[in-house]
């Protein structure tokens, strides 16, 4: 919200600069900022010396602008340009916005050396009706940015939703007054006495639904003249960012910005029934609002003329009953509507107006009457109106403020600072709270009607603290409870995994868990759709980490990095009976795992470089029972399942070209793995046990078997391990040799075996005996031949 500093100054004495004021308000909880002074380049204060009609265009003016030294001819399209004005002048070469450069140009046959700017062109506001006119203190030829900062007359406040009272100048001025101790110079318009309530004879108000409309105040002023507002009104509205329309509309806007209470002014003669009804709309009804839009209604709260809707309550008035130049009698509405009702109505129509914003946060029920009297006074003063004595004040559901007990004990515990009794009492009463000190440790408080946010003791403590100043609360360290010895972080194990992957040459990624419907379903899983997606490309929760990683590989290839190993630890989401969120470790590898150098040739990623990574990972995690087995998998060409004991925990392999095609990715072989983390992390012992190092030497032996081509070396390795030799430590295939001399479809495989005993140095005979056992089993089981 924009607050005008000159306006505030009429309500409370302010000795601070704009920046200091912004700081004071911010420290009170009203986050205030100086308008963002975009840096200007080449924009100076100019003076219009002459503004004549353009010879070739009716709507353009041909001006002479001075920068104090020279005079320039400038073509200007704004209706409000006139001689003697000081204006923001964009000289040739100036830059507006990000990249709009002002050049010397010809407009309808006349050369223009620069441009006279509107506020919108300068990025200051949306104002584009005319050029910005500077005040008489502007220094010709000076930098426009300097003019702006010395003439800054408003602040932008980002209000939290609990403070509807501060959506007004009086509200903000009250805050300043409480903090600085300067008196608030504002009194509500006097309630008038009348002999007879004459207005009741010419107007009736019927509230259908008292919960939606607890209070409706109305009255009539006749013989008004619609016309322009006086200068003081136009100027003050302008500093608050509100353009002047005519005296009647301006009065309503003025009261809104001053007191924060929305009112509406109808043309009395256009409500010929002279009846106002307040009820829920019926389906099929509609109303054309002031912005000339025809609104279809469902169940919004509406104002009717007794029959049909003439306005949307608390949101916007109707066009048919609006004030026009010929209006002479007006009907004033000043109501209090239920916040939830207004919020739902505004939301259902997508209409967020100055009125609805205030009602939905909670307007002031007493403000309804106060605003009425204020409007009456202004209509008399500015529009020459004659008040019809009386007021209609339907108030079927009284809204009252509860009394709150505030205790010294709670203040001390929560605030953590020393707030004296006098400070508490003074602060609360300065905030218009009725305060009564009961005994030594208690206050009884009744908040004002404009503070719906003050309901409980803690709310009052916050008031005291923020006025005292959060910056004055000291820092302390206090822990009453004991340190807990239970598990500190169940996800510590994930750090071990990501650190290991990083050590193995993988880069960790964070990917979006929202994706499009096709991608989410690409691996044939059921995905969870959003009811209100941001866009079609971000409409479903992912069911696999693969697509995102593959797209990232593709992105990096296109940006010159084709050798990439990526992984993510993240959640997959699935819809079953319950929504599932399952942690996965997924990785992809593309390109070379070893680049060419003076020492070596490059090595391409392969199914075996992939397996090597996974073996190294599991070894580091001390999860030793992991097994790989060939398995058909619908997204791999060569796929392996990864299991832990009997549980399959994941899979890996070369990703299918068709999968890449479905994702619209054009790239070479990509290898990937996907592991569900829960079964793995269960196995990981973060607290390790030491096993004694065996002091006896290891003995290495190679064995060479001639095998049928199709026998998997893995099976042979496993069979060797299964011979139950107590001294066989490890087996691994180290060489595979194929030659016709071996016989048709044969291969020779060299296995490297390590033997060791935990209790003694092995003797040759023991090793030979173990090797003989192995030879016997392997030759029998695989029809193999030991090669010497």
């Amino acid at each position, binding site marked *: 919200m924009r607050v005008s500093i000159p306006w505030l100054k009429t309500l409370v004495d302010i000795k601070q600069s704009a920046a200091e004021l912004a700081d004071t308000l911010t420290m009170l909880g009203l986050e205030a900022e100086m308008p963002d002074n975009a840096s200007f380049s080449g924009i100076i204060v100019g003076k219009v010396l002459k503004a004549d009609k353009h010879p070739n265009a009716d709507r353009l003016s041909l001006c002479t602008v001075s920068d104090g030294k020279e005079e320039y001819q400038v073509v200007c399209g704004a209706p409000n340009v006139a001689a003697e004005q000081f204006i923001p002048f964009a000289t040739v070469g100036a830059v507006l916005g990000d990249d709009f450069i002002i050049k010397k140009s010809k407009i309808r046959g006349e050369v223009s050396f620069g441009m006279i700017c509107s506020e919108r062109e300068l990025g200051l506001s949306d104002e584009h009706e005319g050029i910005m006119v500077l005040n008489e203190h502007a220094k010709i030829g000076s930098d426009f940015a300097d003019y702006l900062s010395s003439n800054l007359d408003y602040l932008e406040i980002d209000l939290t939703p*609990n403070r509807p009272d501060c959506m007004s100048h009086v509200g903000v001025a009250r805050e300043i007054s409480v903090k600085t101790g300067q008196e608030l110079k504002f009194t509500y318009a006097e309630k008038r006495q009348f002999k007879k309530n004459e207005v009741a004879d010419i107007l009736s108000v019927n509230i259908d639904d008292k919960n939606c409309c607890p209070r409706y105040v109305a009255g009539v002023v006749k013989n008004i003249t619609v016309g322009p507002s006086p200068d003081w009104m136009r100027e003050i509205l302008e500093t608050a960012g509100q353009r002047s329309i005519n005296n009647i509309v301006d009065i309503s806007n003025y009261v809104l910005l001053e007191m924060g209470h929305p009112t509406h002014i109808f043309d009395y003669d256009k409500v010929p029934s002279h009846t106002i009804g307040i009820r829920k709309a019926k389906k099929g009804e509609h109303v054309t609002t002031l912005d000339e839009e025809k609104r279809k209604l469902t169940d919004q709260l509406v104002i009717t003329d007794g029959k049909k809707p003439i306005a949307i309550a608390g949101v916007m008035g109707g066009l048919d009953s609006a004030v026009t130049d010929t209006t002479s009698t007006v009907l004033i509405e000043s109501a209090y509507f239920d916040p939830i009702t207004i919020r739902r109505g505004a939301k259902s129509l997508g209409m967020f107006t100055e009125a609805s914003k205030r009602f939905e946060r909670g307007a002031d029920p007493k403000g309804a009457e106060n605003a009425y009297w204020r409007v009456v006074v202004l209509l008399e003063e500015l529009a020459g109106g004659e008040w019809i004595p009386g007021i209609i004040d339907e108030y079927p559901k009284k809204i009252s403020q509860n009394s709150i007990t505030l205790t010294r004990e709670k203040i001390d515990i929560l605030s953590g600072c020393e707030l004296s009794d006098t400070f508490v009492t003074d602060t609360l009463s300065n905030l218009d709270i009725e305060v009564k000190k009961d005994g030594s440790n208690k206050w009884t408080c009744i908040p004002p009607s404009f503070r719906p946010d003050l309901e409980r003791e803690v709310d009052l403590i916050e008031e005291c603290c923020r006025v005292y100043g959060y910056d004055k609360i000291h820092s302390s360290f206090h822990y009453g409870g004991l340190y807990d010895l239970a598990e500190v972080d169940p996800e510590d194990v994930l750090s071990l995994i990501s650190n290991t992957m990083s050590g193995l040459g993988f880069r960790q990624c964070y990917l979006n868990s929202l994706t499009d419907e096709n991608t989410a379903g690409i691996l044939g899983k059921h995905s969870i759709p959003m009811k*209100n997606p941001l866009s079609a490309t971000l409409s479903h929760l992912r069911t696999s980490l693969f697509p995102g990683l593959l797209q990232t590989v593709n992105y990096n290839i296109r940006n010159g990095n084709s050798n990439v190993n990526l992984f993510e630890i993240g959640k997959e989401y699935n819809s079953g009976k319950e929504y599932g969120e399952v942690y996965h470790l997924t990785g992809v590898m593309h390109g070379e795992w070893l680049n060419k150098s003076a020492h070596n040739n490059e090595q391409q990623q392969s199914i075996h470089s992939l397996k090597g990574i996974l073996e190294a990972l599991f070894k580091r995690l001390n999860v030793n029972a992991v097994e790989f087995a060939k398995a058909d998998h619908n997204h791999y060409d060569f796929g392996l399942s990864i299991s832990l004991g009997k549980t399959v925990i994941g899979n890996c392999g070369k990703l299918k070209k068709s999968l890449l095609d479905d994702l619209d990715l054009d790239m070479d072989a990509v290898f990937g793995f996907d592991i569900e983390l829960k079964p793995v992390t269960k196995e990981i012992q973060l607290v390790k046990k030491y096993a004694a190092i065996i002091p006896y030497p290891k003995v290495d032996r190679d064995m060479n078997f001639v095998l049928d081509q199709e026998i998997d070396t893995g099976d042979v390795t496993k069979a060797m391990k299964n011979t139950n030799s107590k001294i066989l430590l490890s087996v691994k295939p180290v060489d595979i040799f194929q030659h016709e001399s071996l016989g048709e479809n044969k291969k020779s495989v060299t296995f490297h075996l390590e033997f060791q005993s935990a209790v003694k140095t092995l003797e040759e005979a023991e090793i030979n005996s173990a090797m003989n056992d192995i030879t016997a089993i392997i030759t029998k089981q695989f029809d193999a031949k030991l090669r010497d």
Partner: protein
Amino acid sequence: MTINESIASVRKSFRADLDSFPSDQREIELLRSKYFGRKGLFAGLYKKLAVVSNKEKPKSGQAINAFKIELQSEFEEKASLISGDNKDTDEQSLDLSLPGFPITNGSIHPLQQTLDEIKNIFKSVGFKVAYGPEIEDDYHNFEALNIPKHHPARDMQDTFFVENDVVLRTHTSNVQIHLMEEQEPPLRYIVPGRVYRNEAVSYKSYCLFHQIEGLYVDKNVSMADLKGILNYFVKRFFGEGTTMRFRPSFFPFTEPSAEVDIWDDKRGKWMEILGCGMVDPNVFDNVGYDSSIWHGYAFGMGIERMTMLKYGIDDIRLFYQNDVRFLEQF
């Protein structure tokens, strides 16, 4: 046996050994010492020179030397074939200006690094870590946190709906409720996790981000304690000289509420880093804690924002683009 006969005998034995040249490095070493070692066959040959006449000595000596060089070069050639990498010749390995082997580096994502750092700071002062669901019911994400339906406070967080009453959580505060439903006070936790906002993607906002939430419930907890812990955190995370500002704000689940800014010298202005406050008594009521006995504070911050401020990153989308040129900087 004459010297020449001895040489011939060594040659024969060498040929045989060369034919069955071992592949194992240790066996190669054994073979090497069999010939060239201190007690090896060549040592034997040289010993034989002792009995040769002085006249013959130089000639025989030269013959043995030449023979040794011949065998040695044959042996080394064979040995180098076995050890495999014939590219790495002596000459090259002596060019110390050559770069080393091209070892591939990995990296930990900057968000993970920030998360770990923040977790460690709070762990060091006795906070435990808890996690919770991203797909959450309306009650835990909103109602229980004192954000009723149709309340303007709901506008503070644009929400993705999965069903009418199921959302993608808009903050990690839902876990506060789960923790307090499951445990009796006192408790002291931080809660990291992924949260979602239905906001257009731009350089300063993304449809999801990561938060870390803190919750401490005990007797006699005050605003001063909240300020104390955050002050400690800010100085450890951003550095000892960091200036922090604590200012009033509004969150439905805390009262009083505050926001914390740090001073950014480069930009010359305050940068908001987190929201916090004293747990609202309505929240305690919702989880069945007696708010006349128990007090507490809660705070929440965005990991992305902290990372951006710490490293001077100006576009949040970089975190989710995973460009190697970005990742390798961390």
